[in-house]
C-alpha cells in the first residue's frame, strides 16, 4: 500500500516525538544545557499532544504496522500527559543531580515514542518493537543515579526480568507464527490463533500472556516491582508506574478484544484467577510497607488486578471500564508519585520515600499533603474522587458478568487496601514536635511541578464529581 497524506498526518505525533528526541540529542552534543533540554522536551510533547487532541474523533487510519483508531488516540493523550508530568518533575528533581542531567530527557522522549508505537501496533513486529523501545530507555532511566546502589540495582533488576519477559513474549509469538503463518493481528485473529492450534497455539497464547504479565507485574510475575519502584529515581518510577503500565495494558486489551483465543472459557477463567490473586496479594503485601514508593508499587499491582476484571468479563461495558479505570488510576498515581518526587527534589541522594519523612507534612506543606491525601483517597476508591468512579465501573462489570467470586475479591481487597492508604494519610497529619526531615523546597508551589500536582489533584476531584465527559469519551472507544 502507499502512504498518503492522511497516513502521514495520523502518524505525525509519533514522528514529532522522535524528532524531538533527535533534536534533544543533537542539542546535548552541541552544548549541555539542562533548562534547554527540558524546554525542548516540553515543547515536543505539548505539540504532539495538541496534534492528538485535534485528531480525536477522526476516522481510524490503518497502516500495515500501525492502527490509529480511537483507542490509540485515547492512549496517546494519556501517554503524552504522563510524559509531560514526568518531564516537569524531572526538571525539578535533576536540578540537584551532580552528573549529566540532559540525557534523562532523551531517554524519556525515546520511551514515550516506544509507548506510542506499542499502543498503536497491529502487527507483532511493531508490538515487539514498541515494547523494546519503551523498555530499553527505562533501564537507563531507572539506573540514572547509578552511583546510588539502589538505583543501579533497580535498573539491573528491571533489565534482567524484563528481558526474561521479552523472551517469553518472543517465544509465544514464534508459536503463533508456527500455527498460523501470520504476524499481523487481524490476520492472526482471522486464522483463529490459539483456538484451533491445539497445544502449539495455546502455548503461544499463554506465553504471550506471561510476557505481558511481567511488564504489568501481575502476580505471580510481580517480584521485581517493589524493589524497582523503591530504587528508581522519582521521575523514572513515575514513568514506569504510569506510561509503561498503561501502554502494555492497552496492548493486552487490544489482543483480548481482537483475538478469539482470549475469548475461550479456559483462558478467561485463568484471567479471572490471576485478577483475584493479583488484587489480594498486592494489597496484602502492601500492608507491612514503611516505604511510600514500595507501598505504591504494591498498590499498583493491586490496581492492575482490578483492571484485569475488565478483560475477564465479555460485555460492551468492558472497554469503557478499562478506559475509565486507566484514567482514574493514572491521575491518582501521577499525583502521588509527583508528590514523592517533589519532596525528594532537588536530588540529594536517595529519595525521601520512607513514611516517617512524611510525618506531619500537612502542617508544613498543606497543599502538597492535600494533593497526596486526595490521591490516596482516589486510589482507595472513596466517593467524590476519580478512583470511586473507576471502582464503581469495575464492580459493575463484575456484577454484570455475575462473577461473584471477583465481586467478593474486590470488596475484600478494597477493605485490605484501605488499611495502608489510611496509614499514609494519617501520617501526613500527625504532629511530631521538633521533627524536620527532608522537605520540598519552599517555593515549590511556584514551580511547574507544584502546579502539575495541584492540577492533577484538581482533576481527581473534578472527575469524581462530574465524570460524564470522561465516560462519554471512553464510551466511544
Amino acid at each position, binding site marked *: 500500500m502507499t502512504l498518503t497524506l492522511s497516513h502521514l498526518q495520523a502518524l505525525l505525533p509519533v514522528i514529532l516525538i522522535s524528532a524531538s528526541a533527535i533534536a534533544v540529542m543533537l542539542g546535548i552534543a552541541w552544548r549541555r544545557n539542562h533548562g534547554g533540554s527540558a524546554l525542548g522536551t516540553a515543547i515536543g510533547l505539548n505539540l504532539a499532544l495538541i496534534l492528538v487532541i485535534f485528531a480525536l474523533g477522526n476516522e481510524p487510519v490503518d497502516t500495515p504496522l500501525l492502527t490509529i483508531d480511537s483507542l490509540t488516540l485515547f492512549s496517546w493523550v494519556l501517554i503524552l500527559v504522563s510524559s509531560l508530568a514526568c518531564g516537569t518533575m524531572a526538571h525539578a528533581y535533576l536540578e540537584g543531580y551532580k552528573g549529566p542531567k540532559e540525557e534523562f530527557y532523551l531517554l524519556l522522549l525515546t520511551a514515550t515514542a516506544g509507548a506510542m508505537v506499542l499502543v498503536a501496533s497491529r502487527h507483532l513486529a511493531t508490538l515487539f518493537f514498541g515494547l523494546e523501545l519503551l523498555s530499553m530507555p527505562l533501564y537507563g532511566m531507572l539506573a540514572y543515579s547509578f552511583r546510588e546502589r539502589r538505583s543501579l540495582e533497580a535498573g539491573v533488576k528491571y533489565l534482567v526480568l524484563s528481558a526474561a519477559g521479552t523472551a517469553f513474549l518472543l517465544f509465544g509469538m514464534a508459536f503463533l507464527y508456527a500455527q498460523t503463518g501470520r504476524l499481523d493481528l487481524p490476520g492472526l485473529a482471522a486464522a483463529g490463533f490459539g483456538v484451533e492450534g491445539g497445544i502449539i497455539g495455546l502455548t503461544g497464547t499463554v506465553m504471550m500472556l506471561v510476557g505481558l504479565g511481567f511488564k504489568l507485574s501481575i502476580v505471580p510475575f510481580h517480584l521485581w516491582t517493589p524493589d524497582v519502584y523503591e530504587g528508581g529515581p522519582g521521575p523514572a518510577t513515575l514513568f514506569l508506574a504510569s506510561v509503561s503500565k498503561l501502554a502494555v495494558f492497552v496492548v493486552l486489551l487490544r489482543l483480548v478484544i481482537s483475538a478469539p483465543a482470549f475469548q475461550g472459557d479456559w483462558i478467561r477463567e485463568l484471567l479471572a484467577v490471576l485478577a483475584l490473586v493479583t488484587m489480594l496479594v498486592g494489597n496484602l503485601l502492601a500492608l507491612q510497607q514503611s516505604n511510600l514508593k514500595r507501598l505504591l508499587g504494591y498498590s499498583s499491582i493491586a490496581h492492575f488486578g482490578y483492571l484485569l476484571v475488565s478483560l475477564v468479563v465479555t460485555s460492551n461495558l468492558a472497554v469503557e471500564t478499562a478506559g475509565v479505570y486507566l484514567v482514574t488510576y493514572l491521575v491518582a498515581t501521577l499525583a502521588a508519585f509527583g508528590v514523592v518526587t517533589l519532596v525528594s527534589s532537588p536530588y540529594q541522594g536517595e529519595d525521601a520515600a520512607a513514611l516517617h519523612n512524611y510525618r506531619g507534612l500537612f*502542617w508544613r506543606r498543606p497543599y502538597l499533603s492535600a494533593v497526596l491525601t486526595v490521591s490516596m483517597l482516589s486510589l482507595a476508591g*472513596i*466517593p467524590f474522587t476519580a478512583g470511586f468512579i473507576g471502582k464503581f465501573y469495575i*464492580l*459493575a462489570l463484575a456484577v454484570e458478568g455475575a462473577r461473584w467470586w471477583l465481586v467478593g475479591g474486590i470488596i475484600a481487597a478494597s477493605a485490605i487496601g484501605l488499611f495502608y492508604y*489510611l496509614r499514609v494519610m*494519617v501520617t501526613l497529619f500527625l*504532629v511530631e514536635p521538633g521533627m524536620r526531615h527532608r522537605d520540598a523546597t519552599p517555593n515549590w508551589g511556584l514551580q511547574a511541578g507544584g502546579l502539575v500536582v495541584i492540577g492533577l489533584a484538581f482533576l481527581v476531584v473534578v472527575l469524581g464529581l462530574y465524570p460524564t465527559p470522561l465516560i462519554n469519551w471512553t464510551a466511544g472507544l
Partner: protein
Amino acid sequence: MILVWLILIPFLGGLLCWQAERWGPQAPRWIALATMAFVLVISLGLWWVGDFTLTTVTEPGQWAYEWRVPWIPRFGIEIHLALDGLSLVLIALTGFLGVLAVLCSWQEIVRRVGFFHLNLLWILGGVVGVFLALDLFLFFVFWEMMLVPMYFLIALWGHSGSEGKTRIRAATKFFIYTQASGLLMLAAILALAFINQANTGNWSFAYEALRQTELSETASTWLMLGFFIAFAVKLPVVPLHGWLPDAHAQAPTAGSVDLAGILLKTAAYGMLRFALPFFPEASAEFAPIAMTLGLVGIFYGAVLACGQHDIKRLIAYTSISHMGFVLIAIYSGSELALQGAVVLMLAHAFSSAGLFILSGQLYERLHTRDMRLMGGLWGRLGSLPGFTLCFVVASLGMPGTANFVGEFMILFGTFPVAPVVVVIASGGLVLAAIYSLILMQRVHYGPSQASEPLAGLDRREYGMMLSILALVLFFGLYPQPLLDTTGSVMAQVEVLFLEAGPPADSLGGEDSP
C-alpha cells in the same frame, strides 16, 4: 433548591472554617456554630411551613420537597434529593446535634481548630446528604463520603485509650468495617440496577424505578442481605459491632456525639427507607432472624455495659442495647412500633449525646474516663451530677422522658406480631436500670477520692445540658408533633409489610437469645 443548600451549607462552612483559622482560634468555632445553627433553622422552618401528610399509602413517592437534575446520564444517575417527614426529623436532629458538637468542643479542641471544624461540618453535611438522597448511587456516595472526615476526627483528635488501644487503630477499624460493608451494599445496588436494566432496558438508580424491579426470590434474599449487612454494621447489630466501643471510647466528645446521635441513625433510616421498601417479602421472611439479632443486641450490650470501667465504653455498649430495640421495631412492621422506633432514635440521640458530653466535661476536669478513679463526685462538681442523673434516668426509660415513650410504643406495637420477643426484650429494661445505676453509683456516689471542689458548669455547658434536657422532657410528655410528622411514612412501611404476606407470626417460641 433549598434541599441542595441544606447539604452545601455545611460543606461550604467547613471550608470557611479551615481558612478562618488564620484569624485566630475563635473564628472557626463561631463560623461552625453559625453554620449548624443555620441548618437547624432551615430544617425547623421547613417543618413549620411544610405539610408532611402528603406521602400517602395509595400514592407512594410523593415528597414534601423534591429536587432532581441529571448527573451521570450514562447510567441514568441523577442528583435526586427529596424530603419527607422522616428525613426532616432526622435532619433537624442533625442540625441540633451539630450545634451541640461544636459547642462541646469549644474548650476540648485546642489544636488545629480550623481543620477540626472542617471535618466536623463535612461529617454533618454527608449525613444530611444521606437523609436526603433518593438516587441510590448518590445515597451510596454520601454514605461512604462521611466516613473520611469521621476517620480523621477520631484519628487526629481522639484520645488514646489504655491497654495499647490507640486512636488510629480505632479509627481504622471503624473505617474498614463500614467501608467493606458499604461496598457490599454497592454490589447489591449494582445488581439491582442491572436486573432493572435487563427488565426495562433503561439504566436507572432512581428510587421509584428500582422499587418496581421484579426480582426472583433468591435474588431478593441476597440483595436484601447486602443492604442489611451494610446497615447492620452501622446500627450496629451484634456480631458486626466490633468497631463501635473502640471508636466511641477513642473519639473526641464531638465525634462521640455525632457517632451515637446521628451516624447510628443513618443505619435505621437506611433500613426504613431502602431495605424494607425494596425487598418487602424478603424482609418479612428475614424478620424473625432480625428480631432475634435485636434481642441478642439488647442483652449483649446491656451485660457488657455493666462490666466496663471506661465511662464512654459503657455508654457505647448501652447504644448497642438501645439499637436492639430499634431493630426489633423496624422488623415488626407495625406502625405503632415503627413510630416508637423513631421516637426512640431521637430520644437515644438526646440522652446519649447528653451523657457523652457530660463524660467529656468530666474528662476535662478529671483527665480520666476510668470510673475506678472517680466516685463521690456529687457535691464536688456543681450541677453536673444532677444532669447526669437526669440523662441516666432517661436512658433507662423512666416515664416522662422520651425514651420511655419510644420503648413503650415499640414493645406495645410489636406484641401482637411477636409476643415472645417482646416478653424477652422487656427483660432488657431491667438490665438497663442496672447499668444506668452502676454508672451513677460509681461516678457520683460512693467514697470520694478527694475533697476539694472542682470547677462547676459554666454558662455554655449549662445551656447545652438544659436544652437537651428540655427536649427529652418535651418529647416525653408531648410526642404528638413528632408522630404527626413521621406518621404517613411509617404507615407506608406497615402497608408494605402487610402486602408482603403474613408478618412473622411464626414467632412462637423458636427464638430465644
